[in-house]
Structure formats: structure tokens, C-alpha cells
């Protein structure tokens, strides 16, 4: 990794961006969230560093979830999700490992813990991993995931969404998040999305449609940029 892109400053989370917990109707947010406030610590070397060649450990290049083999296509609306991984100065994060996973078009995950009745798609596993390029870009070919109900009394439906796990240049840059689709009426009813207090921060979790000319006619295109914590080297303080 190029030292020039390594952040050395990490601001506290700005207000309104972190989800407010616990979330009504999501029992695990009550039982898993610590009762005591976290202890504020300075960022020492362990937190501002991170593995620089993680793609050797976590092999990357699996960017097509929709095509599992010759002539074997997943069911659903074919989509392309692309964007950039940036830091808090808007600089591209090169060599970040980006993991994506999602439900199939019927809203079912290929996962032993998902035992709902919605059908599995034999041609869809639904996860991929890539590494950002020199401009911080990533891209995945996949299908639009379906909505699914949360298994709880007084349930609600999760809107179509895609899970992202991003491993950046420092352990403090680590981010797990979700991406939503523009205009879905379930977005406003989703207790997880709505747990983000700031409306503009919620809006930044929603992808933007991109013109067909940019991605080709085969795939409905979405753009989604993700901003990791961390800033560039700053001038020496007086």
C-alpha cells in the first residue's frame, strides 16, 4: 500500500450518523448492546494501522453474483452496483477489500440460519469479494434482492438491501453497512434504516440510479459511494 493514502487522523463520529439503539422490534439490539458506555481511548498505533495486503488472505475478484456458470443465471432483475470507497477527505481508498452479500430475488439468503419459506435459487449464492482499484472503485454484477420479513412479533419488512463489509487501510476504517434502493416505499418503514437519526445520513445509504449508457443495457445500474473514517496527514499543529 502507498503510504501517501494512509490516514493518520480519525475524528469521532459526527452527530446523527451512528444508529440510535436499541431498536424497537429488533430484540438483538436490546440483548447485545453493552449496558455501559464505551471507554473513550486515544487512537494508538494498533488502531491507526491495519493489514496492508489483506487480499492475499481474503482472495478477491469474485464480482459476479448473477452468473454462476455458463448459461446459469440467477433469477431476478440483473443489476450492477458500482462506486468508490473514499476517506473523510474524499480521497480514493486503494486496495480496500469490499465484501457484499444479499438475499436472492425472493428475499431468502443462502444461509443455514435462514429457514423461511421463500424459495432458494439454485443459481444464486449471493456473496462476492473484490479489491478497490487505484481510483478506489469497486463494482458488482448481481440481481436485485427481494424484501423479507423480520421474524418477530409485530413484524416489519426489510426493504431490498445489500450488505457491505469494507476493510480499509486501518482498523479504525473498518465499516459494515447496508445499501438501499431509491424510491422503495419500504425504506421509510425500515426500523434499521430509520435508526440513523440524520435524514441526510440515511439518504447516503441509498444508491443512485445511473444512466443506462454508463453500464450498458444488460444491467440496471446503481452508483453507491462509501466513506470510511480517516483523514490524510495534516499540517503540523502549532
Amino acid at each position, binding site marked *: 500500500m502507498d503510504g501517501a493514502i494512509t490516514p493518520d487522523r480519525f475524528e469521532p463520529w*459526527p452527530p446523527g450518523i451512528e*444508529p440510535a439503539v436499541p431498536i424497537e422490534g429488533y430484540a438483538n439490539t*436490546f440483548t447485545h*448492546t453493552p*449496558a455501559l458506555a464505551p471507554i473513550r481511548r486515544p487512537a494508538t*498505533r494498533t488502531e491507526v494501522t491495519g493489514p496492508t495486503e489483506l487480499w492475499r488472505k481474503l482472495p478477491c475478484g469474485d464480482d459476479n453474483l448473477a452468473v454462476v456458470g455458463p448459461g446459469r443465471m440467477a433469477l431476478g432483475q440483473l443489476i450492477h452496483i458500482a462506486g468508490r470507497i473514499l476517506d473523510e477527505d474524499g480521497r480514493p481508498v486503494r486496495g480496500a477489500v469490499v465484501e457484499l452479500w444479499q438475499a436472492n430475488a425472493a428475499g431468502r439468503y443462502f444461509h443455514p440460519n435462514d429457514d423461511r419459506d421463500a424459495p432458494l435459487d439454485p443459481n444464486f449464492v449471493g456473496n462476492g469479494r473484490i479489491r478497490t482499484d487505484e481510483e478506489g472503485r469497486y463494482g458488482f454484477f448481481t440481481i436485485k434482492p427481494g424484501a423479507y420479513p423480520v421474524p418477530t412479533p409485530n413484524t416489519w419488512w426489510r426493504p431490498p438491501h445489500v450488505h457491505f*463489509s469494507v476493510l480499509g487501510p486501518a482498523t479504525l476504517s473498518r465499516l459494515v453497512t447496508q445499501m438501499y434502493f431509491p424510491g422503495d416505499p419500504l425504506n421509510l418503514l425500515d426500523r434499521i434504516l430509520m*435508526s440513523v437519526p440524520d435524514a441526510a445520513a*440515511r439518504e447516503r445509504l441509498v444508491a443512485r440510479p445511473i444512466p443506462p449508457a454508463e453500464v450498458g443495457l444488460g444491467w440496471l445500474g446503481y452508483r453507491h459511494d462509501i466513506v470510511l473514517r480517516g483523514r490524510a496527514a495534516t499540517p503540523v499543529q502549532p
Partner: protein
Amino acid sequence: MTAPLPTSAHTIGPFFPQTFFRIGDNDLARMTADAPPTARGERILLRGRLMREGGVPCVNAILEAWQADAAGRFRHPADPEAALADPDFLGWGRAWTDADGAYEFRTLMPGGFAEGNQRRAPHIDLWVMASGLMRQLATTIYFADFAAENTADPVLALVPPERRARLVAVADGEAEGMRVFRFDLLLRGAPEAETPFFVE
């Protein structure tokens, strides 16, 4: 250009793909899943359980660990001694919990290092991601081998004295020729039982 704001964190949810896991992911001493572990340092096993309120195991959670090499160096541009760091040591690993909430890491005993005019005791940083955790939790593992270093560690000093023992791994015999250390985590519980977590 206006500086962008960081993207909100969300829970990892209950369905983090098991298809992502490969044998060797939880071995910090291997650069790749099938590379041999580095020869520098004392190989150790780190085992524990992740539990939520009431001591109930957390299933399908993931834990990620990051630490310095045996000499206390990171192979990263932010470490002034990066060029001297062990080239065969990655220092990062990912483990996942089973039906009992149990996890295991294979690594080596980390070294301490100077931080400004203070000194960090040998430690492993650990991040926890689980369904219901809307952002990952960060904690740090210390070792009883280094009692004097622990006392002088500037981060451990921020933890109330009665909670510090929760951050010290417990020696738990040997396995496969390595010392075993146990580090259990309780995400939520009585103040003296809950694992201390940090935020920067």
C-alpha cells in the same frame, strides 16, 4: 470540495456468509490461508466464547483480530519501524462463532512498543460484529505474563480498576504444543461482568 461524512454503520445481521470463511482465516501468523505461519515468536492459541445478555451464546458472529508482531512492529506505513516488521506475519485474522458462541484464533504472542513517551503492553485488538450490534465493538486483550507492562499501559489505565481483569486473557493449559489463552466476552451484563469496550 466539501469533505464527505462517514457512511453510517449497520449490523452485520444474522446471515454473514459462511461461504466467506476459509480454514486459516483465523490464523494471524499466516500471510495467506495456506502459507506457513511465521517462525518468529511464540505460537499461541486464543479461545473463548462470545455471549450476550444472560450468558446466552452469540451464534454466527464474527471476530476480527489485529496485533503487532513478536517484536512489537506493524508492517504498515504508520509504524516508523515498518521496514523491520516480520515480513511473514500478517497480524490479522477473522474467526466466527459456532452454536456455543465459541471462537478460536491462532497467532503468536505480540510484542509491546513505545507510543510517544509511554509504552503499550503486548496486546491484541479485537472487533466484534454480530446481529443486533449496529456498529462493531472494539476491545483489547492483554496477557498476565506482562503484569508490569499492563500496569503502565496507557489504554488499560483508562479502564476502571475493577473492570480490568475482564481484559486479561486467562492461561488455559496447552494444546498442539502451544499455550492456550481463554478470553470470553459478555456483550451485556452486570457492570463488573460486562466486557469493557472502547471507542476512539
